[in-house]
C-alpha cells in the first residue's frame, strides 16, 4: 500500500489543532502540525504526537458493552452495534413515553462538533443539553456577557501583535495551544512583556518578566487595586473609556478604598510592584491582553475576577485593538452563508430546562446550562425527573467534585450511557458503553471557526478503526434511525458534509488541499468606529441590568478568603503539557513521560511537618486519605498544596494509570453544592486538606 497523508484535526485535547497525518500501509506513521496554518509552525504538542499511541492501545473499549452486574462493578457483556442501539433506543423510547422527552439529558465537553448530537436531543424534544463548562469557563463566559452582551469567544487573543500579556487564569506554556504558544513566543521575541499571577511558579512564570506569587483566593483584591491604580494615575485609555464604557464613575468610586497598600495586605504582593506593573501595562496600551481565563471555576468570587479582567482590558483600550482583543468575524460578517445546521431541523423544545437556567436563574446563558445542577435535579426530581443520561465524551466522575455524591445523584437513572473513546470512571459506571472511534479513526462534521480570518474546517478519518468502534455521526445515525428521526440518519460521511455545505457554494473536495476553507484572504480587524457592543447602550456596561435585576451585584465588595487553619492547606490543581486531565494518563507514551503527579508543598510548611522532598506523604480530608510524593519547593504559596489534575485512576483496565498519583477531585467533599451563584461555575479551590508523614 502506498504512503499517503490527510489533513485532520487533533482530538487529544479541546484545542483541536489542525494537523497533517501521514499514513503508511494503513497505519499512522507520523503526525505534524498543518503546514498551511502559519502559527502551527508544523508543530504538535506532546499529546498530539502521542495520538498514535492512543489508537495502538488495546486498553480502551473495543466493542459496545452492556452492563450485566451492578453499576460500577465492571461486569459487561459484549454487544453488536445493532444490539446496543436497540437496547439504548428501547430504553429511551420507554422513558420518553412514561416521563416525557424532557427526562432525557446529555452532557458533553463543548467544542465545534456538537451540532449533530444537539440536533438529536432537539429531535427527541428535550431541552436538557449540557456541557462541562460549569466545571471550566462558565464564569468567563458570564463575565463577558455581563459587560459586553457578547460571549467570551466574540474576541480573539491577538497574542502575536501584543505588547504585554497577563496570565492569571491561563497557563499558556503548559495548557498548550500550539498556535497560542508560538504567537506568544513570537511576540516576546519582539519585546512583548509577560506577567504571570499564580499561586505557584509554573512554566509560563519561568519565561515571564513579572511573576506575582499571590495568596490563594485573593486575585480579586489584586485586580481591584490594579483598577484603583489605573484611575489614580489616570492611566486608562481615554478615548476608548470615554466612548465605550458606561459606568466609569461608579467603577472609580467603587474601587476607591482598594488601594495597592490595602491589596498588599490581602495578596502579599508589594504595592510598589503592583504600581510598577500597572505603569508597564499602560505603556503597552492598547496592545494589551489580560487573558480572561480558561479554567476559571476556582473560587467563589472567580466570576468577579473575570469581570475585573475584562474591565481592565477595556480600560486599556484592548477591545478591538490589534495586539489586544480584536473582534472575530463570523461567516455572515464576510458575506458567506453559514453551514446548514442540523439543529435547525427541529424546533427548540418549549419545555423549561431542568437545571433552572433561563427561568429560575435568569441571568445565566441557556446554551450549555449548568451540568452540576442537572445532576442535582437527578437526585431531587426537582423540577422534574431525569431518567436517561448520556455522557458524551465526558467524564463527570473525574471532572466534577465528589464522585461518591455524583454516583448517588445518578442512582435513580433508568439509563446511563457513555459515548467514549477511552475508559473513564463514568464509562465504567455506565449501563451501556458506546465506543467512539478515536479522532484518527473517525471523521467529524464540518465546523466553523469564527476568527479574524473565519474558516470552515473538517476532521478527516486518517485510518480505519482498529476495533469495533464508530464515528459520532454513525452513532447518532444509529440511534436516530430507531428514535424516528430519519433526518439525522446518514449513510456516508459525504452525505453528512453535503447536508452541511448545501447553499454555501463550497464543495467537500475544497477541504482536501488544506483541511479547511478560509472565507477571507487576510485577517479582518473590524472597523471600530462603527462598532456597537451588544448591550442596550451599545457600550461596555459596568453596571449590568441583567445581574442587578436578578439580585446580583455588578460591583461586589471584596471579601477576604478564609485562611487555612494551622496544618491545613488549600487544595489547588492545574495542567501540564503532557496530559489532558484524566484521559491521557493511560496513554503508553505519555504514561512513560509522566505516570503520576506530585504534591507541591512549600518548603517552610514541609519542614514544620518533617516532610522531605521526594517522600511519600498522606493527604487527608474528613477521614479520607490518599498518598502521593511530595515536591518540596519555595515556589508555591504556603497556604496551598498543588497537584496536576487527572491522576489517581482506580480502574484496573487502565494498567498504566492504575493506582498512580492522587485525584484532587476526591478532596472536594460536598463540592457539588459549592458553586458561584453569580457566575454559575463550581468553585473547586474552596477545599482544604491536611498533609502528614506516613505512619507505618
Amino acid at each position, binding site marked *: 500500500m502506498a504512503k499517503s497523508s490527510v489533513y485532520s484535526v487533533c482530538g487529544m485535547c479541546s484545542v483541536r489543532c489542525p494537523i497533517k497525518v501521514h499514513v503508511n500501509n494503513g497505519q499512522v506513521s507520523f503526525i*505534524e502540525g498543518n503546514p498551511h496554518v502559519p502559527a502551527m509552525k508544523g508543530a504538535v504538542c506532546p499529546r498530539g*504526537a502521542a495520538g498514535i499511541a492512543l489508537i495502538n492501545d488495546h486498553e480502551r473499549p473495543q466493542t459496545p458493552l452492556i452492563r450485566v452486574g451492578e453499576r460500577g462493578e465492571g461486569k459487561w457483556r459484549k454487544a453488536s452495534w445493532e444490539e446496543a442501539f436497540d437496547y439504548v433506543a428501547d430504553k429511551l423510547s420507554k422513558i420518553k413515553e412514561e416521563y416525557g422527552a424532557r427526562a432525557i439529558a446529555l452532557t458533553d465537553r463543548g467544542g465545534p462538533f456538537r451540532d449533530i448530537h444537539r440536533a438529536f436531543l432537539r429531535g427527541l424534544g428535550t431541552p436538557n443539553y449540557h456541557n462541562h463548562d460549569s466545571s471550566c469557563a462558565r464564569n468567563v463566559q458570564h463575565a463577558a456577557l455581563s459587560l459586553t452582551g457578547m460571549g467570551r469567544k466574540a474576541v480573539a487573543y491577538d497574542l502575536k501583535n501584543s505588547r504585554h500579556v497577563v496570565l492569571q487564569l491561563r497557563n499558556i*506554556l*503548559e495548557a498548550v495551544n500550539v498556535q497560542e*504558544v508560538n504567537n506568544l513566543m513570537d511576540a516576546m521575541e519582539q519585546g512583548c512583556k509577560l506577567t504571570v499571577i499564580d499561586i505557584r511558579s509554573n512554566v509560563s512564570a519561568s519565561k515571564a518578566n*513579572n*511573576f506575582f506569587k499571590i495568596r490563594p483566593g485573593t486575585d480579586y483584591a489584586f485586580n481591584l487595586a490594579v483598577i484603583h491604580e489605573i484611575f489614580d494615575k489616570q492611566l486608562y485609555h481615554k478615548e476608548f473609556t470615554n466612548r465605550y464604557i458606561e459606568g466609569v464613575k461608579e467603577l472609580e468610586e467603587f474601587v476607591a478604598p482598594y488601594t495597592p497598600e490595602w491589596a498588599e495586605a490581602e495578596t502579599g504582593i508589594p504595592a510598589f510592584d503592583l504600581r510598577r506593573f500597572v505603569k508597564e501595562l499602560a505603556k503597552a496600551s492598547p496592545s494589551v491582553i489580560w487573558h480572561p481565563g480558561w479554567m476559571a471555576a476556582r473560587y467563589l468570587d472567580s466570576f468577579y475576577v473575570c469581570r475585573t479582567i475584562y474591565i481592565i482590558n477595556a480600560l486599556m483600550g484592548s477591545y478591538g485593538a490589534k495586539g489586544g482583543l480584536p473582534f472575530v468575524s463570523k461567516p455572515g460578517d464576510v458575506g458567506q452563508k453559514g453551514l446548514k445546521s442540523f439543529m435547525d431541523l427541529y424546533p427548540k423544545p418549549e419545555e423549561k430546562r431542568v437545571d433552572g437556567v433561563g427561568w429560575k436563574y435568569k441571568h445565566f446563558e441557556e446554551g450549555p446550562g449548568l451540568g452540576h445542577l442537572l445532576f442535582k435535579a437527578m437526585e431531587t426530581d426537582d423540577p422534574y425527573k431525569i431518567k436517561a443520561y448520556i455522557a458524551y465524551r465526558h467524564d463527570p466522575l473525574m471532572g466534577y467534585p465528589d464522585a461518591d455524591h455524583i454516583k448517588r445523584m445518578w442512582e435513580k437513572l433508568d439509563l446511563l450511557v457513555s459515548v467514549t473513546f477511552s475508559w473513564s470512571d463514568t464509562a465504567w459506571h455506565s449501563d451501556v458503553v458506546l465506543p467512539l472511534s478515536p479522532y484518527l479513526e473517525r471523521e467529524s462534521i464540518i465546523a466553523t471557526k469564527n476568527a479574524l480570518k473565519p474558516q470552515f474546517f473538517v476532521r478527516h478519518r486518517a485510518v480505519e478503526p482498529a476495533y469495533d468502534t464508530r464515528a459520532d455521526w454513525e452513532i447518532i445515525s444509529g440511534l436516530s434511525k430507531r428514535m424516528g428521526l430519519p433526518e439525522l440518519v446518514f449513510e456516508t460521511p459525504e452525505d453528512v458534509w453535503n447536508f452541511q455545505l448545501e447553499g454555501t457554494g463550497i464543495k467537500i473536495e475544497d477541504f482536501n488541499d488544506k483541511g479547511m476553507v478560509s472565507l477571507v484572504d487576510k485577517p479582518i480587524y473590524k472597523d471600530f468606529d462603527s462598532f456597537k457592543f451588544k448591550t442596550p447602550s451599545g457600550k461596555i456596561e459596568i453596571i449590568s441590568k441583567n445581574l442587578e435585576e436578578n439580585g446580583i451585584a455588578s460591583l461586589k465588595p471584596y471579601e477576604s478568603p478564609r485562611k487555612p487553619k494551622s496544618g491545613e492547606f488549600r487544595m489547588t490543581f492545574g495542567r501540564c503539557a503532557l496530559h489532558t486531565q484524566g484521559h491521557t494518563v493511560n496513554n503508553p507514551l505519555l504514561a512513560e513521560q509522566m505516570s503520576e503527579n506530585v504534591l507541591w508543598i512549600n518548603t517552610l510548611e514541609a519542614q514544620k511537618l518533617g516532610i522531605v522532598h521526594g517522600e511519600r506523604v498522606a493527604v487527608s480530608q474528613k477521614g479520607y486519605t490518599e498518598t502521593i510524593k511530595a515536591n518540596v519547593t519555595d515556589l508555591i504559596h504556603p497556604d496551598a498544596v498543588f497537584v496536576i489534575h487527572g491522576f489517581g485512576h482506580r480502574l484496573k483496565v487502565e494498567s498504566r494509570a492504575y493506582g498512580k498519583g492522587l485525584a484532587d477531585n476526591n478532596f472536594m467533599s460536598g463540592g457539588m453544592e459549592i458553586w458561584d451563584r453569580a457566575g454559575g461555575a463550581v468553585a473547586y479551590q474552596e477545599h482544604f486538606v491536611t498533609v502528614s508523614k506516613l505512619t507505618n
Partner: protein
Amino acid sequence: MSKHYLSQDTKKCIGCHTCEIQCKLNKNLPVGPKLCQVIQVGPKLVGEIPKISFIFMSCFHCENPWCVSACPTGAMQKRAKDGIVFIDKDLCVGCKTCVSACPWGAPQWNPNIGKVEKCDYCMDRIDQGLEPACVSTCTTNCLSFGTVEDATLIRRERHAASVSSFDENS
C-alpha cells in the same frame, strides 16, 4: 567529518517533551530508552522570576566518539559521508561498553532486544530531505537542524541584538 548540528534555543523551550515522543515513535522504541531527552533544572528564583532551564540532551555526534572507539564489535560506527554516529544493531552484542564510555549518556538500553539504541539524527528521514523527528514538530520550534556554522551565526546575531537593543524600555 561531522556535517550536521542540532541546536536548541533554550529561551524558547517550554519543556513539553514532544521531541522525545516523536523520537520514540519514529524509532518504535519501548518504554525505557530515550534517544533524546529534555532535562529540567529548576525552577530557581533569579531575581523575582522562577527560572527553569530545559536542556535538550541527545548525542553530540563527536568527531572522535568515545562510543565508537570502545565498541568491540564494530556495531557503533561513524557514517563517512556526514559524520553521523550510529549503531548497526545486527552487530551489537549488548555488552554496554559504549554506555560506559560515553560521558553524556547518549547510548540507551533497549531492554526488549538487549541491545543499545542511539540517536542517529534520524538518518532515514534526513536522507529523504526531512528533519530529524525531534526537530520536525518541536512545539516552539526551539530545536533546529543545520550546520555548525549556521548555529554559531544565529547565536552571535541574537547576542548582538540583545546587547544593542533600541527598545525604549531598556
